[in-house]
C-alpha cells in the first residue's frame, strides 16, 4: 500500500489532544481529558476517509486538531507536505486555504448578522487578491456550484432552511479551492431527505474538483455511502481502519463489530443481524483503562487486554486493527490469519 497507491495528501502520526483539568483552589493541573490519544492515519489524494464512533469518542476533536483549531498536545499532521502542527502563525495563515472545514451545525456556523454574500466572500477577502467585481463573480460561481439561487446573495442566514445553510457553509469552504476538507458531521443536524442532497453534493464536488475528505459522522449508513476507507474510533483511539466494503462485510475489531451490528437493515426479508449489546458505559477519557481502551466492555476480552494497550497494526492487507486478537504475540481464539506486524506507513506508536 505504501508504494502502490497514490501519495497520501494527509498524514497524521501519533496525534494527541489532551485538555488539562484544573481543580482545587489553586487551579492545580491534576490530570488531562485524553480526547485524542495517539491517532495515526493517512488519507490519499481524492479519497474519502470516514471517521465513525459514538458521541464523545474524539471524532470532532481529531478534525479540529487536524486543522489546528485546537493546539495538538503532540503528534504530526502533514498536509500536502507541511507539518501543520508545528507551523508558525503566519505560515499557518498562508496554509489555511489548502484545508477547510464544513461544520456540524449550519445554524451556528454562519454569522447571523452577515449576508450570504459576505459569508461566502470572507475567505476571499482574507486570502484572494480580488477586486469587488472579481469577488462577486467568484461568490456567484460558488453559489452556482452548491446549487444556491443567486438572488439569495443578500439574505441573512435565518431566512434559509438547514440544507440551504449547509450549502452556504460548503460554498464558504470551497471558496479558496482547498485540497482537503474536514466534514465535521455535516449532515447530523439535517433531516433525512436533506442529508442525501448534501451528501450527493459533497460527492459531486469531490469528483469535479478532486477534493479529499475526512468525513466525520456517527451515521454508519451515510459513511458506507460516501467513504472509501473507514476508521472506527473508540475513546480517543482508532480501533479499526479498513476499506469500506471489507469493514462492513466483516468487521475485525470487536468494537467495530458491535457498532456495525447496530445498523438497521432496511429489507425485512433479509436475515436479521445478530445485535451485539455492549454492557456498561464508556470509561471517562480523563481516566482511561490501563490496557486496551475497550477492555471494560469487550465481549472477547482476555488477560493481556487489561495490561497492555494494543497498537494499530496491519492484520490483513489494507486493514489495520488495534486488538490483541490480531497481534502475533498472542493470537486470540478468533484470529483468522497470521497478522502482519506492520504499522501503517511505518509509524511507530
Amino acid at each position, binding site marked *: 500500500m505504501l508504494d502502490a497507491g497514490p501519495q497520501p495528501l494527509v498524514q497524521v502520526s501519533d496525534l494527541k489532544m489532551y485538555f488539562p483539568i484544573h481543580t482545587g483552589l489553586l487551579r492545580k493541573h491534576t490530570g488531562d481529558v485524553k480526547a485524542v490519544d495517539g491517532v495515526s492515519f493517512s488519507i490519499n489524494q481524492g479519497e474519502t476517509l470516514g471517521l465513525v464512533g459514538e458521541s464523545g469518542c474524539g471524532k470532532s476533536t481529531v478534525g*479540529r486538531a487536524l*486543522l489546528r*483549531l485546537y493546539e495538538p498536545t503532540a503528534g504530526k499532521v502533514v498536509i500536502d507536505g507541511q507539518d501543520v502542527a508545528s507551523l508558525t502563525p503566519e505560515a*499557518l*495563515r*498562508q496554509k*489555511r*486555504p489548502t*484545508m*477547510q*472545514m464544513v*461544520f*456540524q*451545525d449550519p445554524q*451556528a*456556523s*454562519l*454569522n*447571523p*448578522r*452577515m449576508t450570504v*454574500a459576505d459569508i461566502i466572500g*470572507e*475567505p476571499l477577502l*482574507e*486570502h484572494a487578491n480580488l477586486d469587488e*467585481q472579481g469577488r*462577486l*463573480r467568484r461568490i*456567484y460561481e460558488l453559489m452556482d456550484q452548491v446549487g444556491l439561487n443567486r*438572488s439569495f*446573495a*443578500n439574505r*441573512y442566514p*435565518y431566512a434559509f432552511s438547514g440544507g440551504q445553510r449547509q450549502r452556504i*457553509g460548503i460554498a*464558504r469552504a470551497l471558496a*479558496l479551492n482547498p485540497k482537503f476538507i474536514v466534514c465535521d458531521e455535516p449532515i447530523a443536524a439535517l433531516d433525512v431527505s436533506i442529508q442525501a442532497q448534501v451528501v450527493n453534493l459533497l460527492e459531486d464536488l469531490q469528483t469535479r474538483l478532486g477534493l479529499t475528505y475526512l468525513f466525520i459522522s456517527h451515521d454508519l449508513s451515510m459513511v458506507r455511502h460516501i467513504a472509501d476507507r473507514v476508521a472506527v474510533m473508540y475513546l480517543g483511539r482508532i480501533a479499526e481502519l479498513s476499506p469500506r466494503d471489507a469493514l462492513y462485510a466483516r468487521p475485525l475489531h470487536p468494537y467495530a463489530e458491535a457498532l456495525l451490528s447496530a445498523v438497521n437493515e432496511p429489507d425485512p426479508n433479509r436475515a436479521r443481524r445478530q445485535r451485539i449489546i455492549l454492557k456498561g458505559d464508556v470509561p471517562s477519557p480523563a481516566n482511561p483503562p490501563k490496557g486496551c481502551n475497550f477492555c471494560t466492555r469487550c465481549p472477547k476480552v482476555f488477560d493481556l487486554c487489561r495490561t497492555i494497550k494494543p497498537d494499530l497494526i496491519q492484520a490483513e492487507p489494507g486493514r489495520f486493527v488495534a486488538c490483541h486478537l490480531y497481534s502475533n504475540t498472542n493470537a486470540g481464539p478468533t484470529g483468522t490469519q497470521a497478522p502482519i506486524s506492520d504499522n501503517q506507513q511505518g509509524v511507530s506508536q
Partner: protein
Amino acid sequence: MTELKLARPRSQWADVWAQFRHHKGAMAALVLLIVLMVFVLIGPLVWRTDPNFIEPNTAKMFKLRNLGPSWAHPLGTDQLGRDMLARMMFGGRISLAVGAVAMMVALFIGTTIGVLAGYFRRLDSWLMRLTDLFLALPLLPLLLVMMFLFRDAISGVLGPRLGTFILIVTAIGVTSWMQAARVVRGEVLALKEREFVLAAKSIGTPARRIILRHILTNVLSPVLVAATLGIAAAIITESVLSFLGLGFPPDFPTWGRLLFDGIDSIRTYPERIVWPGIAISLTVLAVNYIGDGLRDALDPRIRGR
C-alpha cells in the same frame, strides 16, 4: 463578461428603519427626543432671553424674583429673577451633551475592556479584577474628590466651561464603564465558542478582524442597551454633581443645577424643580425606548417578522 451587480433591492438601513417604525414606543420616544432637541437647540434662537440676565436695578430685581408663569416668563423666574425658560433651554444643551459624550466614553472603555477580557484568556483575570476594583470603589466620593482636585487645574488651562465639561465627561466615563464591560465580556465568552468564530479561524482570519467582523457586530444589542441606560445614568450623575455644587460653575445652568437651586424653595415654589425634573425624566425615558427599538431593528432575525 457582463458586469455583475449584487442586487441590493433594499439597503440594510432601509430594513432597519422599516423595522424601527413598527416599534410604536420607540417612534414616540424618537419624536419626544426630537422635540427635546429642538427645544434646547433651536429654542434659544426664538426665545432670546439671556439665561444669566439679572436685573441690575435692585428694586426691579426684587420685583422680578420668584414669579409664577406669565407671558413675559412662561415658566416663571428663579430666586434671582432669571428667566426659567431660557435657563431650561441652555441647561438642556449641557445636560444632553454631557449625557451623550459621557456615555460614549464609558461605552468605548467598557466595550474595549469587555472584548479584550472575553476574547483573550490571558488578559481576562487582570481586566476583570480591574473591573471589580472599580465596582468596589465608592463612586460618588471618588467623583467628588476628582472634581475637587482637578477642576481648578483644568479650568485654568481650558477655561471654566470647556474645562469643567471635559472633566465631568471624563470623570463620569471612567467611573461608569464597568457594567458595559461585564455584559460585553459575558457575551464575548459565549460568542467566541460559536462555530462561526471557529469557521473564521479556520479561514485564517486574524484575531483583530474576527473581533471587528464577528464579535462586535454580535454584541451590538447588549451594547446598545448599555448605551441607552448609560445616557440616562450620565445625565443623572451630572445632575447629582451639579446638585452637590461640584459640577459646572454656579452661573452656568444645567438641568441638575436647576434642581439644586430649586431645592431650597421646594415648598413655596415646587414648579421650579418640577420643570428640570420632568425634562430629565423624559430624556431618560425617550433614550431607553429608542434603544429598545434600535436593538430589535438591528437584529436580522427579528427584522422582517
